[in-house]
């Protein structure tokens, strides 16, 4: 990681990462990559998000699914932690709440593999600028 020496440097990094540089580093087919975000704020972790993240990470690899699992902050659905957001290639992100390892397994097998929704979707109820 080099120093950012000017505003132009910063803009370049911003542009690169907007195009998904991270994803390209992680996959040879970024356009087919499944993205999973686990809400890992205190509320999520307290409800077991760490375990879910580890589970998803290892299971997706075991099942040979081209996916990237990252952590993120609080989505606001504290009543339904742990929450994860799954984005299938070319589709809108879907949030699942109260995720257990069993539920995670179901999400992988049904939603991620076949696109079939499973119980426990948390409807998105806000707009972000």
């Amino acid at each position: 990681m080099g120093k950012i020496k000017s505003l132009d440097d910063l803009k370049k990094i911003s542009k690169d990462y907007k195009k998904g540089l991270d994803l390209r580093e992680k996959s040879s087919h970024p356009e087919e990559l499944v993205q999973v975000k686990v809400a890992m704020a205190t509320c999520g972790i307290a409800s077991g998000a760490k375990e879910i993240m580890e589970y998803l990470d290892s299971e997706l690899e075991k099942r040979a699914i081209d996916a990237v699992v990252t952590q993120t902050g609080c989505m606001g659905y504290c009543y339904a932690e742990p929450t994860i957001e799954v984005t299938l290639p070319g589709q809108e992100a879907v949030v699942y709440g109260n995720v257990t390892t069993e539920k995670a397994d179901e999400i992988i097998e049904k939603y991620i593999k076949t696109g079939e929704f499973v119980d426990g979707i948390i409807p998105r109820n806000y707009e972000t600028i």
Partner: protein
Amino acid sequence: MSGYSMHLLVCGGTGCRASHSEEIEFKLRNELEKRNLEDTVKVLSTGCFGFCEKGPIVKVMPDNTFYTGVTPGDAEDIIAEHVVLGRTVSRLIYEDPSSKEKVPDSKKMGFSKKQLRIALRNCGFINPENINEYIAREGYMALGNVITDISPEDATRLVKDSGLRGRGGAGFSTGLKWELTAATPSDEKYVVCNADEGDPGAFMDRSILEGDPHNVLEAMAICGYCIGADKGLIYIRAEYPLAIERLKTAIKQAREYGLLGKNIMGSDFSFDIELKYGAGAFVCGEETALIHSMEGLRGEPSLKPPFPSVKGYNGKPTNVNNVETLANVPIIFLKGADWFSSIGTEKSKGTKVFALAGKINNVGLIEVPMGTTLREVIFEIGGGIKDGKKFKAVQTGGPSGGCLTENHLDTPIDFDNLIEAGSMMGSGGMIVMDEDDCMVSVAKFYLDFTVEESCGKCAPCRIGNKRLYELLDHICSGKGKVEVLDRLRLMSEVIKDTSLCGLGQTSPNPVLSTLDNFYDEYHAHVSDKKCPAGQCKDLMEYFIIEENCVGCTACARVCPVNAITGERKKPHEINQDICIKCGACMEKCKFDAIIIQ
């Protein structure tokens, strides 16, 4: 891919469930099976849509059709019309209340726009431990623009013009605060981020720091540029280990990129940030107490003036801003003051984050534009009251705020309206109460907190609050006479009028607002010795209903204080003078002969 071509999402939130959403699910599946469609269309239960007022909700995917007010009887039509024939069931389509137009597509409906995330915009979106994700969301761009193109004066003016007010509670103009600190000449100045979030139930600052730490760092650097400071301090409570860890990571990454440190982005501006830990004292959220605590002194407030903008940390001019306030700053620079001031009400611009808690279905963190009503927050975003109970009050502003009632539900939330209604914005805790909550006990709960958290420096707060608590306890235990209500008010007013800092000046608010809004409930406690909500144990009495009692003597045998007497096979009686209200008799009685009143 899956064999399902369509999904029917049925809201499984508590509100909708109370209106038979499970039965709707069942009926939908039935209808599908009847038509052998169960392998093509899947029925799902989801979390709350937050639109409980118009529940139960059924959403059809992939076309996003949004049915409201669905009953089990509508299941057949949804399957027969929509699923089979592809025709929307128009009677179930949401009608926009202002335009009276039917809006079938949920994406075009207003209710999902009730929430607007500005301060929380990156929370739950980016990985807080990856600076690149922040930069990809235009992170540090505001700082870069400011330090290369804008003078400190112009930048400060922009913040002032945006109308941003402090989110920590008092709502002081952020730009003006910066201007005052900038105007004090000094060789050294400090930017302090107040992350000593202490209101019971409030956790938005923690969430922002955990989910988007760079946002706050960037804002502090911008502030440093504006006021002429090259040092920033984040005062954070040690009980926030994850936030501390993420901040440390963020600071390290920003330093590695040269976004903190000397000559940021090749400019003359240098700025660095250090963490200072607090031990979690509520009073240290008061800026002078916070500064004393950072200096290694006892965390207690001192008289203002001098304000920190003149004499703060180490005696130098210091600008103290709350986390949420700072989280709004970078985006204001990116989108402009006009954009920000177009959101909200006349005097309160932008959004406010609330931590919804209490007897509400969707406990969580929400962010709404200023001017949103309490009703919208509680019933449309919060999903209404748990277990279908009746709404009684909402407490805003934490221990400094007040309890608002049904009459205030349509009040647009902003700094001034809440104060006028007898509460305050505070840091954004919002606790909802239902019919089972005793308002005297609620006031007592808050006083208990204040008594615990008073620093003890000034007499009215140190002793007065304790006396208020004792008097409330006295009332709850049924020993108070009607006259004590006047004493309660008098003490509250004097404590407000004479306390040194904001803690004592606002601590009687929960008492005064409940006295104003629920006087009858207080009166019932002291005159009738009754707790209408049935919460105050000392005011309850256990009775034996003569008709139901068979005289089995089970209750008398289990009573630890021998308060129950009576002959075998004849109705028994409880001696109220002896009864300690343990409830053992009621538990034991097999004939429902014992009741509480």
